[in-house]
């Protein structure tokens, strides 16, 4: 399997050669990557535990301390370090977003491929379900679902509930996108060639349909990631997150709950808000650039520069 690695590297280098010169893409990658690094190395970026209450010399909790008094970003209403909460919150926000995004992407791709490739009643069934889900507004539905599930006192973490609800409801746009792509891919001649050779459905999907979809799926995953993070933030802001493992949305929820605005404690609510913008902006920039670069339908392949000979079979031409 040395060749496949060789190929992988070659393709990656090829991709990088073009990507490098795309400013938007590089900015997006930087925004996203920096957030991921911060999440990964959170313990090294802060001397405190996120739940630790900072005390002054007299032993009293240092509440609502502005950045000038404590640390880079001050403390919250309970005297906890905001910077520490921000870097640890990155872990929760990104994890929930990533897992939910992957679940959504997986379900969406699978159903989109099944619907597009097999057509018929499978297609009808999947598309009807998609339509129903598309008509119902996402946020209220998820709100109700998360709230209900939490009422049921199941022995699962609120984060898992969030991940599942977002992941299981957010695949519709992906499914439609993938389906429409599959519809056009399966009419292409190399698929007919595979069928003529005698290849089965599984082989055709794996070897011929999926490779064409991969770029779209990758780009879409990045875009979905931003939506998943935004939804997670929204739900957590509304108090549906896990208070023991605060994400950026939960931080905002705390801030509003504890009257951070009326107290003028901007260092409490601005950082998580900006962090959410930071990451979603990164995802959108990167996702759009990837889509543009990798989706052969939007632009011609960057390597396809050769001149195509036109078919000579025109109307009225005999002989």
């Amino acid at each position, binding site marked *: 399997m040395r*060749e496949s690695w*060789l*190929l992988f590297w*070659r393709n990656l280098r090829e991709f990088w050669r073009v990507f490098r010169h795309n400013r938007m893409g590089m900015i997006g990658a930087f925004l996203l990557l920096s957030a991921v690094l911060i999440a990964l190395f959170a313990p090294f970026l802060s001397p405190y535990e996120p739940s630790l209450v900072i005390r002054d010399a007299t032993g009293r909790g240092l509440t609502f301390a502005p950045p000038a008094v404590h640390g880079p970003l001050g403390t919250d209403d309970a005297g906890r370090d905001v910077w520490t909460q921000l870097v640890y919150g990155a872990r929760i926000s990104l994890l929930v977003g990533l897992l939910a995004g992957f679940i959504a992407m997986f379900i969406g791709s699978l159903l989109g491929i099944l619907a597009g490739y097999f057509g018929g009643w499978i297609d009808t069934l999947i598309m009807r379900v998609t339509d129903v889900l598309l008509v119902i507004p996402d946020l209220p539905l998820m709100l109700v679902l998360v709230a209900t599930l939490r009422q049921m006192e199941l022995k699962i973490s609120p984060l898992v509930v969030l991940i599942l609800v977002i992941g299981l409801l957010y695949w519709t746009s992906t499914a439609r996108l993938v389906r429409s792509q599959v519809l056009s891919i399966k009419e*292409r*001649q*190399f698929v*007919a*060639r*595979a*069928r*003529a*050779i*005698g*290849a*089965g459905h599984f*082989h055709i999907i794996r*070897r*011929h349909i999926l*490779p*064409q979809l*991969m770029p779209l799926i990758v780009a879409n995953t990045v875009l979905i990631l931003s939506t998943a993070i935004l939804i997670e933030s929204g739900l957590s802001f509304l108090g549906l997150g896990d208070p023991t493992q605060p994400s950026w949305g939960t931080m905002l929820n705390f801030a509003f709950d504890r009257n951070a605005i009326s107290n003028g404690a901007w260092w409490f609510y601005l950082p998580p808000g900006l962090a959410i913008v930071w990451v979603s902006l990164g995802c959108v920039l990167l996702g759009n650039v990837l889509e543009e670069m990798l989706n*052969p339908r939007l632009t011609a*392949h960057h*390597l*396809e520069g*050769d001149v*195509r*000979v036109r*078919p*000579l*079979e*025109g*109307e*009225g*031409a*005999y*002989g």
Partner: protein
Amino acid sequence: MTQEPLLLVENLRKYFPVGQSLGDLLLRRPPGLIKAVDDVSFTLLHGEILAIVGESGCGKTTIARTLIGLEEETGGKILFNGRQIGARERRLQAGLVPLESGAIGTREQQSLPRLSFKQFRQQAQMIFQDPYESLNPRATIFEIVAEPLVVHGLARGRAEKIQRVRNALEDAGLRPAEEYFLRYPHELSGGQRQRVVIAGAMVLEPKLLIADEPVSMLDVSIRAEILNLLHDLRNKRGVSIVFITHDLGTVAYFADRLAVMYLGRIVEIGRTAEVLKNPQHPYTRALLSVVPVPNPRLRRERVILQGEAPNPIHLPTGCRFHPRCPLAMDACRMTDPAYVQLSATHSTACLRVESTAL
């Protein structure tokens, strides 16, 4: 000529339903049919090249796709090595479609030995028209050429697979083969891509190649190379070729026999020399008259056909060529001509020929 043919096609028909308009639906009009292939019969001997020539839209690609099993035939028989291989036939034998009364040849069908479709797929391969479209853009040349081996589980071990892919590529004129293994289709020229397609088709050492206008998308300068390659494969490997083209000019030195198609029907068929030297059907003559001939003294008077090819939904009554035929007579509007045998190998479907030639 007494040899059993590799491929025997009898009364092959392929109709496509036309989308019904809302009006049709409300008035309960039956859906229309595009008779893309309508009653086509021919044989192909072992190691023979048969060219099928006709205007765009006359049903050539549909024949190819039906023969290879990409489309299910509406009716008729396809025998490969004396065995039934039609897609519809497979379903009939599997009992999925009830046998209609009067279905063509139902009695013999039961007694014919079956050829598993998988086996047939190993022995018959298709070369598609567009080499830019028939290769998966995200697969390497090695993967593309090895695919038939993988699908049929034929190569034992990696070494054998590499060996067979290398041989196929070199036979197709891509040397040294290793240099192509890890390349992608977009890195190759049109002619090289078509060679890859041919290598992929030949890697299973098939008995039958169906080539659907294999050079029409290629630069004029490389067409001859690809045609020579196919010719060589026939001579060295004995593979039979159904060669589909709209260009009568390429046929002359290439094919052993020639079938001229018009609107889903073969109007004239015979040995290439017979048909080219002594064309009998007015449509064949019209086609030949516009082929450029290098020697001006041999140039024939051009026969310019009137009107456009009628579409295969509303076929003319009688002879389907009569609206454009310079020799049409009253009878042509009424009678669909039967084949007239001009020699043991040459026949044509024309009422005029019936009344003059014999």
